[in-house]
């Protein structure tokens, strides 16, 4: 399949750079695209934020690296500005989710609203039939079912399917994940073989637009830059049986499963069990109280099947670093799927995604209510 034009979403990291080099070597017409998503200078100097822009997201260093790769392998390269959409569809919801007591996943929102939406449109407009990214995942067309499938990659330790559950059939049909059958060491080796200077560049870990991973400071800085004040979300610290045992300084400072920073001294360790956004209450309890057998997922996207007609067995992942656990999934209403685990799971967290798997195949997923 040579001579098709493929756009590559280039972040300036090893993975997407290697993708560009691989596709170029295969003889495709490759166009490198980097999305400018966030202007780090906006919050520089706000309390708790770095004085200068040192975060990772859309840093000049990464653009420089991507540009160097494009030059090395001989492809045209462009930076496209999607700052407005990123703020509207990723940053705002990120802040609002925390302020209402949930723990958001901005990477999935970015995939759904930016990478596989806006960037895919740009790719089509500039004449690229497909968009390739450096995600560790696989896409296949299943003739029998007539559907595009999203599958886990060979390198399980790098599996990024959890963040990709929102992809539609149309998006998957135009997407290429060339790293799906490679391990990270193999990718670094390939990068070296293609003469890419960044073969040893470290992986990025944190949320790209939150410097140092400190989301609380980020929320403060963002709201203050927007001329908004941080809403008062302080309230009571209560036990699972409703007893008030103290106060907290704002629900956005807590995550389900959190142990440290509760500000109460008790004999046994206390954990955040639940955050009641409306009542501004943080419910605390023991480790055992964190265990739940069921959850409800909303805003569902199904991939391998069109509809979930009857209850079925699946393994379900409730956070990126969670070992998928056996469960039964069942459509409760048009918008809601109930997951019933065989064994209770620890710290089911509203705002995170529940992603359903049939072995390697992503059935679909939704947002934990």
């Amino acid at each position: 399949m040579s001579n098709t034009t493929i756009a590559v979403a280039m972040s300036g990291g090893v993975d997407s750079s290697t993708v560009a080099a691989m596709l170029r070597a295969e003889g495709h017409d490759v166009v490198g695209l980097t999305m400018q998503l966030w202007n780090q200078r906006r919050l520089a100097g706000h309390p708790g934020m770095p004085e200068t822009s040192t975060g990772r997201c859309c840093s000049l260093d990464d653009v420089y690296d991507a540009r160097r790769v494009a030059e090395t392998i001989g492809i045209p390269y462009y930076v496209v500005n999607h700052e407005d959409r990123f703020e509207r569809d990723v940053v705002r919801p990120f802040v609002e989710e925390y302020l209402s007591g949930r723990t958001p996943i901005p990477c999935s929102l970015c995939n759904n609203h930016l990478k596989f939406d806006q960037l895919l449109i740009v790719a089509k407009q500039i004449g690229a039939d497909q968009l390739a990214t450096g995600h560790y995942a696989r896409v296949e067309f299943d003739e029998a079912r007539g559907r595009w499938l999203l599958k886990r990659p060979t390198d399980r330790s790098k599996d990024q399917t959890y963040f990709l559950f929102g992809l539609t059939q149309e998006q998957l049909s135009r997407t290429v994940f060339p790293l799906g059958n490679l391990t990270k060491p193999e990718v670094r080796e390939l990068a070296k073989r293609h003469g890419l200077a960044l073969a040893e560049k470290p992986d990025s870990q944190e949320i790209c637009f939150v410097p140092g991973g400190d989301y609380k400071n980020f929320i403060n800085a963002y709201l203050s830059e927007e001329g908004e004040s941080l809403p008062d979300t302080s309230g009571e610290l209560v036990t699972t049986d409703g007893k008030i045992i103290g106060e907290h300084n704002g629900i956005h400072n807590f995550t389900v499963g959190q142990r440290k920073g509760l500000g109460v001294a008790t004999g046994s360790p206390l954990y955040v069990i639940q955050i009641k956004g409306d009542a501004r209450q943080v419910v605390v309890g023991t480790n055992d109280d964190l265990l739940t057998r069921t959850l409800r997922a909303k805003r569902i996207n199904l991939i391998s099947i069109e509809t979930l007609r009857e209850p079925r067995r699946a393994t379900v992942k409730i956070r990126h670093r969670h070992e998928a656990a056996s469960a039964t999934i069942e459509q409760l209403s048009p918008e809601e799927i109930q997951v019933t685990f065989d064994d209770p799971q620890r710290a089911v967290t509203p705002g995170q995604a529940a992603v359903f798997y049939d072995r390697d195949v992503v059935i679909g997923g939704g947002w934990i209510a």
Partner: protein
Amino acid sequence: MHRLYLDNNATTPVLPEVFEAMRPYFSEHFGNASSIHHHGQETRAAVERARESVAALFGCRSSEVVFTSGGTEGDNFAVFGLVSPGDHVITSTIEHHAVLNSCKRLEDIGCEITYIPVDGRSQIDPSDVKRALRPTTKLITIMLANNETGVVQAVEKIGAIAREADVYFHTDAVQAAGKITIDVNKIGCDLLSISGHKMHAQQGVGALYVRKGTLLQPMIYGGSHERNRRAGTENVPAIVGLGKAAELAKAGLENGSAQKIAEMRDRLEHTITCSIEGTGVNGGGAPRVPNTANVYFDWIEGEALVIALDLKGLAVSTGAACSSGAIEPSHVLTAMGLSPDRARASLRFSLGKQNKPEDIDFALGLIPETVSRLRELSPVYNR
């Protein structure tokens, strides 16, 4: 692939005559223009001949020309060389960032700045400038021609206002030089900056007109070069090239070649606006330099159009690129009152002396089909 360059407001190719004029000044006539020996005298003479050529383009005395590293330095020199904390400065909302960000810096050090707005064609009303004058006003800095729309401001009226109020007047003429006649005395400016690479000389050289008697504080200290106004060994080959480009610019304005560029530009604009729905010329109807066409294509992202055209061999631009290379919404178009959507849907085509009528045919062969493909794929257009 056939490639066509229609982004001459970003930079221009060095003309062969300019390159030939520069060539002896690298290895043959290499002397330091400040040296007293033969080698120095040779290059000193070349620098001074170039100064005379630039002076002829400006209509000033050669002693009033200071060579710089380009337009940005000239603008900075004019602004920071005159203004001190406590002073008031009048500028406009559509200046180049070399002026706008210099003014922002002045605000940080205790100056007050008035930003004069523009009308829908990006024209400044000189009476607004007059009204903005204060007893503390030290400088008016308003551009001659805008880099994005090509619209020419009523600088002669502003010059008269400045003279009457006894206020310094600087004009950024980077996008006017070589395109329209510049006469510093008619304009009545005290300072005027130009850039070599916007008029077919090389990048990294420019000139600043400084009216005799203007007390301009140097920005670079060192030797006594440029009559103590700008220290540093002269960049002789670049200055020689600028001198040659100035000669050619002056000749071009007199022999009608600027008119030929205007005809090509007008045909490009006319054909686009007549054959593609939802298009129009930003700043159309206002006096403009002959080479610039800023056209909006409703329902598309200008950024995607620039990329799509580049992949087909046509180089044009939109807005201003930020440090990453991403495109930022144009402050000029938004200041003119364009909606953010239309500002993002606007493209700048800018012609140079190297362009031929068949270039316009090539561009017109690509633009309509590319625009219609983008529109077909646009969520906004199909709604």
